[in-house]
């Protein structure tokens, strides 16, 4: 089914009414505009709170989700920072403890240092070597996998720093065994102003372990970079250890911070970071924004679905209600217009009646005088001897008299028509009635060569409204005449149908009515003659009149063959009390 035909089927009756202006009695309203206005207004009033609430809710939940993500990331960063700091400060404190509780002399002894290294390895995993460096930067004792005794560290950057700050934590570097290491060194000053440095190397396995154990939501990654952005612990997404990370190095901040970055592929990232005090490290926690927002996307989808469903339901209800109400108004207005038409029609018939009566009366009086004068002349010719004899004059007078008689017949018919404009139930002789009606249309039939055949079987006199019957017949015969070409044939048959009813059948051999129009033919305003000025009311009024008399009307038709209207009437019309009599 095409969209147009669906629309046609759904289209309410009022859609095409009220804005055409071609009808004689216009509808009071432009129904289409009322409908549109109603729909627009109610839809606006009903939907705007729903939509604005949805937008508000969207914003609130969206913002809440975002700040939740930031908060959680920030918390995770803080906790992890504490863990990392604790790891480093624990090892630093161990070295501090050693230098405070052993003399330089003790530590110089490789056996003691070996003992200490073993103890450290037991207590804290990861220590690989231990070295004692004197104030001149020379390594005095070394225990570990390499032979580094006597190595001079003076002038090296890390040595300068440990001298200046008392403690040093190195970046991660590849040691001699190609394993990532970091170095922690502490300086111990003696009361005499001299000092020495204890230096330990740690492999970073433990360090890495700290972070790899963290469960980071949102496809995230926790790792450490140094302040130059070199990656110190393994990361899943952002590069290899000891290479530059793919993200820019975040600016210094003493506190935990959360930023939003664009990833390499342009994907949005949430980056939480913290500078770890007294070390070159920055703890980074990087999460994928879209992953984190997934629950929110689901909520958003549900919100949109709910909104769409609400809007659809509200719109459907509004459309239904508006259509129903406007249809009701339309029906009422249609009824009003029909009544107006009906009234106008009856009014017009009554006016014609009054006019006919007036004309007949005015003509009747002079006609009566002519009649008497001509009669007198005729009498004189016939009865008085002094005028007698002239056959020619007698003929002339007789022709005047017969013409007067014809005029009299016409005026009597007019008067009779007018008389029956009033509504009342009285005995009606059908044959006379038909003749009276045909009297009005006889001339047209004659001019157009239409043959009218009237057949009235033996029927009882019926009690009915003569005026209405006249109108019914007049309309039917008029319609038949309109449908027929010149030289057509009209049949009027009246017979008794049952003990209580008679039937009047008016059959023409005119153009006929297409089947699709047949159902609608008694509807008000249905007209095929609209372009020719038909109001589309003739048959509907006729039908109304038949119903008023308690009868019924049927139609049969074949296109090109003709149409037949059958009016069934009760012998005694149901009396309808008229208010105005």
């Amino acid at each position: 089914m095409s969209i147009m035909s669906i629309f046609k089927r759904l289209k309410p009756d009022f859609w095409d009414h009220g804005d055409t202006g071609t009808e004689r009695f216009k509808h009071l309203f432009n129904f289409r505009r009322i409908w549109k206005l109603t729909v627009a207004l109610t839809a606006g009033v009903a939907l705007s709170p729903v939509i604005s609430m949805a937008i508000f809710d969207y914003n609130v939940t969206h913002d809440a989700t975002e700040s939740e993500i930031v908060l959680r990331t920030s918390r995770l960063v803080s906790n992890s920072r504490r863990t990392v700091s604790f790891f480093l400060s624990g090892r630093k404190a161990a070295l501090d403890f050693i230098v405070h509780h052993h003399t330089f002399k003790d530590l110089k002894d490789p056996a003691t240092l070996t003992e200490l290294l073993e103890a450290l390895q037991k207590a804290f995993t990861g220590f690989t070597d231990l070295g004692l460096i004197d104030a001149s930067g020379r390594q005095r004792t070394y225990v570990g996998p390499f032979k580094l005794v006597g190595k001079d560290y003076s002038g090296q950057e890390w040595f300068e720093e440990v001298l200046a700050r008392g403690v040093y934590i190195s970046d991660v570097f590849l040691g001699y065994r190609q394993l990532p290491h970091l170095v922690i060194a502490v300086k111990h000053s003696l009361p005499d102003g001299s000092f020495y440095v204890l230096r330990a190397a740690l492999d970073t396995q433990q360090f890495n372990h700290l972070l790899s154990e963290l469960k980071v939501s949102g496809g995230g990654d926790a790792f450490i970079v140094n302040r130059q952005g070199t990656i110190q612990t393994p990361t899943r997404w952002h590069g290899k250890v000891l290479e530059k990370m793919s993200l820019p190095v975040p600016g210094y901040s003493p506190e935990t911070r959360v930023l939003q970055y664009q990833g390499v592929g342009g994907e949005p990232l949430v980056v939480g970071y913290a500078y770890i005090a007294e070390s070159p490290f920055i703890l980074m926690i990087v999460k994928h924004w879209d992953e984190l927002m997934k629950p929110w996307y689901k909520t958003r989808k549900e919100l949109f679905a709910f909104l769409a469903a609400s809007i659809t339901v509200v719109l459907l209800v509004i459309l239904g209600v508006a259509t129903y109400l406007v249809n009701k108004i339309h029906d009422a207005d249609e009824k009003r217009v029909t009544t107006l038409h009906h009234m106008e029609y009856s009014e017009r018939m009554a006016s014609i009646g009054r006019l006919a009566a007036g004309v007949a009366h005015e003509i009747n009086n002079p006609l009566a005088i002519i009649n008497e004068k001509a009669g007198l002349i005729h009498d004189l010719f016939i009865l008085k001897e002094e005028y007698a004899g002239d056959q020619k004059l007698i003929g002339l007078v007789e022709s005047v008299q017969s013409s007067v008689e014809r005029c009299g017949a016409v005026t009597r018919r007019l008067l009779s028509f007018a008389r029956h404009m009033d509504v009342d139930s009285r005995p009606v002789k059908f044959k006379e009635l038909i003749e009276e009606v045909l009297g009005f249309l006889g001339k047209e039939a004659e001019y157009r060569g239409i043959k009218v055949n009237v057949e009235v079987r033996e029927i009882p006199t019926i009690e009915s409204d003569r005026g209405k019957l006249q109108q019914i017949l007049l309309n039917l015969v008029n319609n038949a005449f309109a449908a027929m070409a010149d030289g057509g044939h009209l049949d009027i048959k009246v017979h008794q149908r049952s003990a209580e009813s008679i039937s009047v059948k008016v059959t023409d051999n005119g153009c006929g009515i297409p089947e699709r129009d047949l159902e609608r033919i008694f509807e008000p305003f249905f007209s095929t003659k609209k372009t020719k000025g038909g109001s589309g009311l003739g048959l509907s009024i006729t039908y109304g009149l038949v119903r008023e008399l308690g009868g019924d009307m049927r139609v049969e038709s074949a296109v090109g063959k003709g149409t037949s209207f059958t009016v069934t009437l009760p012998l005694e019309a149901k009396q309808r009390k008229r208010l105005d009599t």
Partner: protein
Amino acid sequence: MRVLLVDDEEELVSALAERLSLRGIDADWVCTCYGALERVEVKTFDIAVLDVKMPKMSGLELKRRLQEKCPDMKFIFVTGHGSEDDFRAALTEAGTAYYLVKPLNIQTLIDKMSQALKG
């Protein structure tokens, strides 16, 4: 048969009266209701032919007045106006048989008058 014709159209009644006279009927005519009331004072009539619609007094009213003066008088109504009201009123006053519509047929009028007198 003595007939009084009453109609406001003088041309009509005068000719009608003459035509009736030619047929041996004693016909008198007047053009007003008051004329009619005066005329019956001086002459006796068997029957009156009255126009229903006349100025000042209707034929029906005139009939009542005449009947008071001459209880035996018969009446025939004539009208040029076949309105429902006239028709019904005349029917109750005179019966269908004595109600005629203009223009009149002289023979019909004479027949009706004879009938009225017999009835």
